[in-house]
């Protein structure tokens, strides 16, 4: 168990002790009720955070789960005489199933569309439950066996129950954060296509997160029904419930374990206090102050209180980490024995074509990359290079032609499956987890080939050494230089030890010194037996690097061969520089 996890466990224990102490100290039923509500809303917000904070998929509809949990408990008690001791765990199942049902269609959407679709579910549920005639459901008082039905005279029992559920939720959240599950969610949040290309089955993890989140939110709703004793559609499916879950997490620190707890601890008593003191004097003052508080926190601490404090403490905000010494040597790694298939065609594209609307992005492309080769694909902007990679990777399906890798077809495979076959890929825009170390960033890429987290870390460390970034393994990624970021991205792609790696404009915009470093790393990588296919659009850098060029223009391959031949090819020159130049160079070269 890592020291961070140990610390978090102590913190959770500390929270429990603090709450119990507070409970003993408070004598008033009212304060205990408010405390219960703080704990319940904290749990709801942590549940929300598990999906939304970790994966970046924003849900405005978590009230759907909360409401389903509340109604499960209420209707279970009224119609089937089932005690909440049974129906609260049952509502977890209901919530999980609802998550699955909602996830199936809704995860086909992204970003804003996802958020808006989630908005619709609780509101639709509200109408449905009203229509079904469940406008006001009081939970029947069980005088004969109150404890059996979770009806306590002492409010403190509810505090204890809510605390128990919150602790369970925090433990679950903690274990998610430190597992492959969590890392995959973080990767999805940072750059979902990259995560997919790194072999992470994004759909599976998102579904699991939604189901888990829904189950926990439903349990919170179930206990809420027991505490409130009256369930109405507006109270449990209303927009305010979803908004509250969101606001607490965003205020306190989205994507962190403690953020939602901080948010609940500050905002719930604040709201209740405002309502109690000023509610009848200035009706609505609570809402106004709440709104101002939210805007203030966004302007001053956009990711929430927790991150602001942590960043300040970690000293990340003002300065970057110290610069490494330039020209760090690449440690010599023993050369891998040449693969028996070296020289044979590893990746073969035949007549690949794809169109967007009327535009032929790729038009009958043939490509063969032998194992151990270092091939470059160049062409002017808009030639179709990235589209080519996207097609190989599985983000796009070719309309014509086939693609084989080690004689197996790649067409129709999802990107994470393509990755599993042994193809890695880097992306142009490097989005790193700035608050995590370089090693942790690269570990994400290693999951696909690793049996467990420890193995993944080992593979990540190895990959870092391979590209020469081993010394920086424990530095925070937020402090890296441009060159180091590219190397880290390269390491991430190499971590699962792929046979082929696709480099997408890795050299773009680099200065001379930096360029040398990266080129050296790429050569080293090839020396170890990894086949490299690299996209660039500047010739100079590539000319010294690659064995072979394929030149794309307007979706078609216009030249293919060694750097020397390609550079002189008049069609290529024309494509890059225009007809006039082509003629001039043709004359000069001859």
């Amino acid at each position, binding site marked *: 168990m890592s020291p961070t996890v140990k610390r978090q466990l102590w913190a959770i224990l500390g929270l429990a002790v603090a709450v119990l102490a507070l409970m003993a100290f408070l004598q*008033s*039923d*009212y*304060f205990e*009720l*408010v405390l219960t*509500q703080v704990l319940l809303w904290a749990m709801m917000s942590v549940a929300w955070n598990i999906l939304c904070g970790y994966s970046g998929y924003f849900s405005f509809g978590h009230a759907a789960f909360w409401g389903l949990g509340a109604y499960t408990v209420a209707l279970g008690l009224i119609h089937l005489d089932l005690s909440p001791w049974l129906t609260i765990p049952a509502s977890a199942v209901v919530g999980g199933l609802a998550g699955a049902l909602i996830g199936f269609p809704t995860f086909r959407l992204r970003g804003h569309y996802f958020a808006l679709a989630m908005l619709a579910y609780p509101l639709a549920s509200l*109408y449905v439950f*009203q*229509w079904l*005639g469940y*406008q*006001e459901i*009081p939970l*029947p*008082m069980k*005088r004969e066996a109150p404890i059996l039905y979770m009806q306590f*005279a002492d409010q403190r029992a509810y505090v204890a129950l809510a605390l128990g559920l919150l602790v369970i939720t925090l433990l679950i959240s903690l274990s998610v954060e430190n597992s492959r599950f969590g890392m995959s969610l973080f990767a999805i949040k940072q750059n979902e296509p990259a995560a997919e290309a790194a072999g992470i089955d994004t759909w599976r993890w998102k579904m699991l997160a939604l189901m888990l989140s829904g189950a926990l939110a439903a349990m919170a709703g179930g206990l809420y029904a027991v505490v*409130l*004793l*009256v369930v*109405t559609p*507006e*109270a449990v499916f*209303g927009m*305010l419930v979803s908004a509250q879950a969101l606001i607490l997490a965003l205020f306190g620190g989205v994507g962190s374990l403690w953020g939602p707890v901080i948010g609940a601890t500050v905002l719930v008593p604040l709201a*209740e206090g405002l*309502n*109690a003191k000023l*509610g*009848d004097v*200035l*009706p*609505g*003052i*609570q809402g106004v102050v709440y709104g101002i508080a939210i805007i203030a926190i966004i302007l001053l601490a956009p990711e929430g209180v927790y991150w602001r404090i942590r960043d300040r403490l970690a000293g990340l905000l003002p300065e970057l980490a110290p610069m490494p010494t330039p020209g760090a040597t690449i440690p010599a790694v023993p050369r891998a024995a040449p693969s028996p298939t070296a020289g044979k065609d590893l990746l073969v594209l035949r007549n690949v074509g794809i169109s967007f609307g009327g535009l032929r992005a790729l038009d009958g492309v043939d490509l063969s990359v032998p194992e151990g080769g270092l091939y470059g694909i160049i062409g002017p902007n808009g030639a179709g290079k990235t589209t080519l990679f996207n097609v190989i990777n599985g983000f796009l399906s070719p309309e014509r032609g086939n693609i084989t890798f080690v004689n197996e077809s790649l067409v129709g495979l999802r990107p994470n499956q393509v990755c599993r076959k042994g193809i890695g890929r880097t992306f142009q825009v490097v989005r790193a987890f700035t608050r995590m170390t370089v090693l942790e960033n690269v570990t994400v890429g290693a999951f696909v080939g690793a049996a467990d987290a420890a193995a993944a870390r080992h593979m990540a460390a190895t990959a870092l050494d391979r590209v020469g970034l081993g010394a920086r393994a424990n530095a925070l990624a937020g402090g890296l230089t441009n060159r180091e970021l590219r190397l880290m991205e390269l390491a991430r792609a190499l971590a699962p030890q792929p046979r082929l790696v696709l480099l997408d404009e890795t050299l773009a915009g680099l200065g001379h010194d930096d360029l040398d470093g990266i080129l050296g790393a790429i050569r080293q990588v090839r020396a170890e037996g990894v086949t490299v296919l690299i996209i660039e659009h500047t010739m100079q850098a590539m000319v010294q690097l690659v064995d072979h060029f394929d030149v794309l223009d307007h979706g078609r391959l216009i030249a293919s061969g060694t750097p020397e031949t390609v550079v002189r090819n008049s069609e290529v020159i024309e494509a890059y520089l225009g007809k006039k130049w082509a003629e001039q160079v043709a004359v000069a070269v001859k």
Partner: protein
Amino acid sequence: MTHQMTRRSVAKGLAVSAAALALPAIGRAQAKSVKIAMIAPMSGPWARQGQLLRMGADLAVEDTNARGGIKSLGGAKLSIVYADAGDSTEKAKNAAQRLVADNPDLVGGFGSWLSSFTLAVTEVTERAQIPWLTLSYSDAITNRGFKFVFQTSPTAEWQAAQTVPTALDLAQSATGKRPTTVGLIMDNTAAPTSFAKPLREGGFEKAGLKLVVDQIYTPPLSDATPLIEKVRSAKPGFLLLLTSAMPDCKLVLEKLDEFKLSHGKLPLVGNGAPFGSPELLKTIGPELLEGMLFSVANWPMKGQEEFIERFKKKTGEPFLTQDGLCGYGHPAILAEGLEASGAADKIKVAEAIRAMNLTTGPAAQCFPGPIKFDEKGRRIGVPMIFAQWQKGVPVTVFPTDLALATPVWPSV
């Protein structure tokens, strides 16, 4: 005011006075006070209703104390603590819990207007054994087996059973004919739903009515055209309107006018106090409302004329409605309970209320029928009041002995 001058109460009164005299001078100057509570929405969408309740309550406290306070408690003054139920059941419950925790000496209370709020609040007050009065008429409130909740309005079911036959009687006595078809337009909130249920399950049939339009909508209504189109084609003998929210009332009434079904063409019968609100008058205007009948649990009646004028003058309201009236009546009932029990003890007050059978006195004058509750906390033998908009004021027209005006059944 009825109170029994038993030997016990006289002796108690003497004992209390003696104790008061025995106190030091400073203490003697302060008369004892007895606390009751009001929990109602005072912020949020229903703030107005809470405001009106409060207006009535303040008057009740003023009057009680001006009359010498609670005599059986040595002239103890009545005082009210207010709490805001806000805009959600959660807030209402919090308010109740807070009130109870901060005021352990509460002897009774009333509120909270919206039936879901009342449900939540009474869960707290029942456990604290505080007698609670409410004008909310959802059946669920008194169906829980609670001992400390008292509903001064008859239940929706009972109201439905009274409203339809009475309307038919009114029609017959005014025009000589009884309608044979009826249309029903309602929203799907709790009160209309419980009102309409018994009607659909045989109530209409028993009254000899065929239901030719039956439309339920989810508030808020966006446009009443498709609703009224159905009414236009079905041509019912009268229209039963259970649109509890004022904005929806406005849409329906104006659409009826647009479709030339107003001004007597189609008699309208509503249910519930929102049909008599000043807001309705302000946004729709008196001509469209003229002649609209509505049944309501409580409305200003004969014998209250002076009180009505007083209320209007003090508050500036154009007329008295159920909220102001019950706001006055509920503290008055609690005061009667205190008088009868002779102790500032919530359990004894509850017992006193349960045993009550008031026909005279300031509390009884606020409600039709005697103040008498059954073992569920429901009132027995309450006549259904009908009010009608006449010249811009909703006045009680039925039963005749409580009426302030004569009923008119609209006809062409």
